[in-house]
């Protein structure tokens, strides 16, 4: 586990919203990546898995469904910025402590692995398992 892996979910990353959670994540890669690189978000909150198709991704002030990022190769996730994941929950969650388990997989567009037809970008994964305190956030 590298130092940037510890930076993916910071102490103040989780917010309770009117319709669920908002989780701010920071990249574990050293350089900016296009939003198309956000390949894997395998997330559980308090042991309850989040369907990736239900996620929306907020980056640079705009919001996209997680499963519709394929055209976002000109939008960049800069190194010092958070991307916010919006996670709907049927019952509005409470403030307080919540366990975050996250497998974040970033597709690295300039590091190509494999040969011939199997050539594909390297998938750089980062695993987080920590409990953080949610605070209230009015927007979204």
């Amino acid at each position, binding site marked *: 586990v590298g130092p940037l892996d510890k930076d993916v979910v910071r102490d103040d990353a989780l917010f309770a919203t009117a319709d669920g959670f908002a989780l701010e994540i920071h990249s574990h890669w050293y350089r900016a990546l296009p939003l198309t690189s956000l390949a894997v978000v395998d997330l559980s909150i308090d042991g309850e898995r989040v369907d990736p198709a239900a996620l929306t991704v907020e980056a640079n002030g705009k919001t996209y469904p997680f499963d519709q990022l394929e055209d976002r190769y000109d939008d960049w996730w800069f*190194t010092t910025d958070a991307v916010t994941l919006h996670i709907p929950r049927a019952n509005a969650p409470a403030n307080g402590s919540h366990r975050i388990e996250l497998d974040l997989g970033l597709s690295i*567009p300039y590091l190509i692995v494999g040969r011939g037809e199997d050539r594909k970008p390297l998938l750089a994964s980062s695993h987080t398992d920590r409990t953080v305190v949610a605070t209230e956030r009015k927007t979204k």
Partner: protein
Amino acid sequence: MTLTPEGLPKLGITLFSLTLEMRRPDYSLENMVRRVKELDLGPGVELVGFQSLRGWPQVSDDFASDFRNLLDECELLPTAMSMNLDLARRRDRFMTEDEGLAYLEAQMAAAKKLGFPIGKSAILSTPRFVEGLARITDRLDMTFGVEVHSPESVDSPHVQELWGLFDATGSPRLGFVPDFSASMHDVPPSLIGAHRASGMPEELIALVGEVWHSDSTMPEKFARFAQEATALGASPGDMGKLNMVLTMHGRMDPRRWDELMPKVVHVHGKFYEIDEQGNEPSIDHETIMDVLVQAGYTGYISSEWEGHAYTDAVSGWDMCRAQQDLMRRLLAQAADKRVTHAH
């Protein structure tokens, strides 16, 4: 600003060494550049466009002018701009050759606007791509280098192939950027320490060290490590981490950089730690400085601390200061040896 004596390699830093410092709340590029001056880590400044510059490769006239003025004020010089060829930026297909050339040309133009004379990136090793790159460097009056980084070495097929393609263009503007990671004599002790601290089994640590030191090719090392680690019951996660030890740290004889020197346009002084005696325990800086001085290299060496990949227990600033002290001492010594040999 302390300069190395005339006729010797010049020193500088890549801001990539400060990857963790860039995540601090008080970070700004301007403060970072000023600190380079304060700590006397110049005169050369290299950076990674996609890391340090928001919106790269779009660079506004105002930003470019402010950046150049800042470097001037700090008596620093832009050396090489690290770029990337994001072949898999789209999910549905790889970039075509023409798209790749356009992608690099935009970054070269942005680098020039900021005052950088050299661009560096990985490239496609086809005649058409290399010829296109030669035309781009002509149009912009710039130089371009491909890094020779572990697991590549002087005699790896990819490097030999590029050498042939560079020569075929007849362009003096294309060359290589040797990275010290290709010529190490040990795995960094601090990396082993980090694996140990994270609970990596001792027998796997011993195995990867033994395989790393063995006299065999890279594919043979990967295969032997996979086989023996599996037999020891290694998890896929642990195997992945230790495979990186084989990938990131090459065991080429550092004297062999001499063969590459006619084509060297810039140097990456990759390192991982400096010990209490002021030496790098896994990279033979003395031999490398001898080779660079003997070859008459007067370009830049960028201090590139990469220990931040596995530790935040030390400061990238302190590490680069210590490596430059070491290189300064060894460059003076190498210059003395050169004079002695000449007599």
